[in-house]
């Protein structure tokens, strides 16, 4: 297959005898053979592997005319060239170093040779080459022709994606597109939103009225003999009271409606995200920190709630108010208006810079607080060890250091707080004195030559407006920070909502009404991350009703087989069949109803033991719960609790030991009565005595039921109908317990070692 190599690279490779046009695969990496950054193009063709190391520079075309479309050209500066013939290469493999990796060819003469180095950013591509070559050597198949989707970098700005799989660039994702995505959530409440906007408009208008009434009208029209409403004090007071009442009612209405809309939008967002969580594949959760996801759902939705409930209405009200005030002031005295308005941008920028400084200081304080809390929880949690090794003095020192750092950071914030804000307030007060001064001059001018100045009432109104213009500036400067964090929250939420699950249910998936339980793996390959293959060409068959034991060292890939059968992940190649149907063609319902898994990591939900056992089948009767509890060996310890099966478990309530939790989860799986039962180290957390106790009960449950048992203690697998031994993702041995012992291979070695260890601690087989 061909990939788009730059023309200059192709030409250079051809000149050196390579065949880029007949390439099976070509990749671009980023380092020379001496670990120096450069561009490296490796072309694999029937001849062999040719790598050109070069530096690319974009240069202006000499003959570029004004109308030509391309004015630049890529100039290639060759650094090195390396070629190894395909006949010489036995295999290719990648050696991972600390911050780089290197591709090594094992030659047929037994020597090894490094083809190139690369940074981990190229890991996927390098492994793609080694795997393609391995496959080619095995069955002669060449890689399929497919276009590479970018190179893990944003095509617009060239920034590496923060999550290469998601391929969204946080730097480029526009604010407009975010708002567009949010609109449907608000559209559902369009009437309420319209009402909020209307009330905001009214509040703005009414607020402008106040200084006009209690200054201009009071001094110039009511208290002045020449005024139109001279002496009508009661009327003015009643009017002021009426306007205040109207303002309060509008405000209440606005707050009520905007809170309601924001609360419902926040609810809708949380609901959509939770639905997205349920839809997403298991891999989404394993690659993310659970705490961070919880923060995302809670805190981000909360941030948006406050932004839309508080921030936006207040911002709009103040903005409209400022416009209204500006218009009124201009109509009275443009010069005085200018005196008031001119300093506004400076004060605003001042606030903005101050808030930016404080945000940085707060973030620093947050980091130091986290460090302080970390030390504190470390010491308190490990007090037994501290005392055992007499390290009290050291720990006091460690605590003192972080505590001092925290105190210093707090002190810096407080000091700056007490200096900067009074200074800003002083600047604003000085502006008001200036207004009094210049305004006073106009009042005097009005007295000496009427019509050329302003009245005392108008001056008082200007001072009232001054406060209305300057007070929201602090909020405005803060608002932009609030808006940025709301947009960030929005982006994080949409990232979850729009994430695509890796494992999807097929359209028209097959639903099996009854499952016999035959399981077959056919040449299954799987890797969690590129190049690190966990399962290699695994094939086995478990006839319906039989038990298969899977044996192997930790990390051999045993649990991965269980994950693949339950479709927590999908195999990369090969197929997994249940009753002859590929699991990828089966409906999720068929799979979940007929396959149950008890794993080493058990999880009990908040609720009673009974609720937890019934989790798999909420309609189970109490008698069935008891039977499952007895079979799983949890009945005895449950009955020692005063509340029996009604004992509450989960966070902050009754804590069960690992073995007890495992028994509850075995009961849960038994109650489901699945056609296929997977016991993945299901008894590993139990002591040998308890394990043996429930072994016979488990034997009864697994009789005539397809069971796949993964166990560390090989003695628990001796009655399995067949066994497979896994090593580094491959099946290395298969047979029954007896036949494998006779074979004297890996299984025999593992079994003998375990038996000897058991004898040492006094447990005889």
């Amino acid at each position, binding site marked *: 297959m061909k990939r788009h190599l730059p023309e200059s690279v192709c030409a250079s490779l051809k000149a050196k005898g390579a065949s880029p046009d007949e390439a099976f695969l070509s990749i671009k990496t980023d380092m020379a053979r001496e670990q120096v*950054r450069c561009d490296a193009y490796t072309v694999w063709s029937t001849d062999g592997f040719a790598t050109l190391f070069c530096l690319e520079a974009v240069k202006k075309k000499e003959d570029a005319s004004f109308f030509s479309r391309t004015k630049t050209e890529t100039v290639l500066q060759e650094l090195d060239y390396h070629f190894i013939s395909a006949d010489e290469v036995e295999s290719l493999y990648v050696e991972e170093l*600390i911050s780089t990796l290197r591709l090594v060819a094992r030659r047929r003469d037994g*020597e090894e*040779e490094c083809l190139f180095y690369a940074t*981990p950013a190229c890991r996927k591509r390098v492994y793609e080459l080694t795997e393609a070559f391995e496959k080619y050597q095995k069955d002669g198949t060449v890689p399929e022709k497919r276009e590479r989707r970018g190179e893990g970098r944003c095509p617009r700005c*060239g920034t590496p994606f923060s999550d*290469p799989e998601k391929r969204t660039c946080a*730097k480029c994702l526009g604010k407009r597109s975010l708002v567009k995505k949010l609109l449907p959530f608000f559209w559902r409440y369009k009437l309420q939103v319209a009402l909020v906007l209307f009330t905001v408009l009214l509040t703005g208008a009414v607020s402008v009225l106040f200084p006009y009434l209690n200054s201009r009208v009071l001094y110039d029209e009511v208290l002045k003999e020449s005024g139109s409403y001279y002496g009508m004090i009661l009327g003015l007071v009643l009017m002021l009271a009426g306007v205040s009442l109207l303002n309060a009612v509008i405000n209440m209405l606005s707050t009520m409606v905007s809170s309601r809309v924001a609360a419902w939008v926040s609810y809708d967002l949380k609901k959509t995200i939770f639905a997205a969580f349920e839809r997403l594949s298991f891999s989404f959760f394993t690659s993310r920190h659970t705490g961070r996801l919880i923060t995302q759902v809670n805190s981000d939705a909360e941030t948006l709630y406050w932004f839309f409930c508080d921030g936006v209405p207040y911002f709009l009200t103040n903005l409209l108010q400022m416009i209204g005030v500006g218009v009124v002031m201009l109509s009275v005295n443009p010069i005085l208006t200018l005196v008031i308005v001119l300093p506004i941008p400076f004060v605003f920028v001042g606030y903005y810079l101050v808030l930016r400084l404080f945000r940085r200081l707060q973030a620093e304080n947050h980091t130091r607080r986290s460090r302080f809390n970390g030390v504190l929880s470390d010491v308190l949690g490990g007090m037994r060890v501290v005392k055992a090794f007499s390290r009290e003095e050291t720990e006091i020192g460690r605590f003192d250091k972080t505590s001092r750092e925290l105190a210093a950071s707090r002190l810096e914030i407080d000091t700056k707080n007490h200096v900067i804000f009074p200074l800003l307030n002083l600047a604003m007060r000085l502006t008001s004195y200036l207004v009094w001064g210049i305004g006073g001059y106009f009042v005097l001018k009005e007295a000496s030559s009427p019509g050329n100045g302003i009245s005392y009432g108008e001056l008082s109104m200007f001072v009232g407006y001054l406060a209305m213009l300057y007070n929201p500036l602090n909020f405005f400067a803060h608002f932009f920070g609030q808006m940025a964090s709301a947009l960030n929250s929005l982006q994080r939420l949409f990232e979850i909502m729009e994430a695509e699950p890796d494992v999807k249910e097929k359209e028209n998936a097959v639903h099996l009404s009854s499952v016999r339980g035959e399981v077959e793996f056919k040449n299954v390959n799987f890797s969690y991350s590129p190049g690190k293959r966990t399962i290699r060409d695994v094939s086995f068959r478990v006839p319906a009703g039989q038990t298969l034991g899977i044996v192997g060292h930790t990390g051999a890939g045993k649990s991965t087989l269980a994950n693949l059968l339950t479709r927590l992940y999908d195999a990369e190649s090969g197929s997994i069949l249940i009753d002859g149907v590929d699991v990828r063609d089966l409906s999720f319902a068929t799979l979940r109803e007929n396959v149950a898994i008890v794993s080493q990591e058990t999880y009990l939900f908040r609720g009673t033991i009974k609720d937890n056992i019934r989790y798999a089948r909420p309609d189970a009767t109490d008698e069935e719960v008891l039977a499952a509890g007895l079979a799983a060996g949890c009945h005895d310890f449950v009955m020692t609790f005063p509340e029996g099966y009604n004992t509450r478990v989960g966070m902050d309530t009754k804590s069960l030991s690992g073995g007890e939790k495992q028994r509850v989860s075995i009961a849960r799986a038994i109650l489901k009565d699945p056609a296929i039962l997977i016991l993945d180290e299901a008894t590993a957390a139990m002591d040998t005595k308890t394990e043996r106790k429930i072994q016979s009960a488990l034997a009864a449950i697994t009789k005539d039921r397809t069971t796949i048992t993964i166990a560390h203690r090989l003695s628990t697998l001796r009655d399995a109908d067949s066994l497979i031994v896994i090593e580094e993702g491959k099946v290395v041995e298969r047979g029954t317990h007896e036949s494998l012992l006779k074979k004297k291979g890996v299984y025999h070695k593992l079994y003998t070692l375990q038996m000897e260890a058991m004898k040492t601690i006094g447990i005889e087989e």
Partner: protein
Amino acid sequence: MIKGMEMITASLRLTGENACFALNANGLLTASIPAAEHRGRVFLSLAFPFEREEEYISVQTEEKDELGMIRSLEDFDAETASLLRAELKKKYFCPKLRKILKLVERNGNTYWDCLSDQGDLSFTVRDVHRSLIRASEDRIFVVDVDGCRYEIESIAGLDRKSLAKIELYL
């Protein structure tokens, strides 16, 4: 040395007397260690990479089985020591950041534009607090989304502007 431990560490100790290191025809490190019955490729790992860059070097096979440990490069002749030093340099290679030109934080990711001993570099770091490895009070490593490491040899040695950009995360 702790009582009884000499025997254990001595059995592992590799010196010029019991190990012979060389490069193969293609420049990859090989060793002949008769006590471990090994002859072929070997891989080096530092036990204390932040503190001891020429001491306590584990010598392993491709399968990560330890063949022995080099207590110090001084236990070898100058030629072998420089061979091993070069191999360690390759293994622990990482660009050294000289200047932080731009550092922008968005959605928990930080976007770095830096000047390094390898030229201009741009990379993205997810969750910067977790991705900074402090080797000492003055030396840190930054790990980007791909797993590439970048070293700041001396925080105090950074220029004022670079320091202002990074100090928030230190």
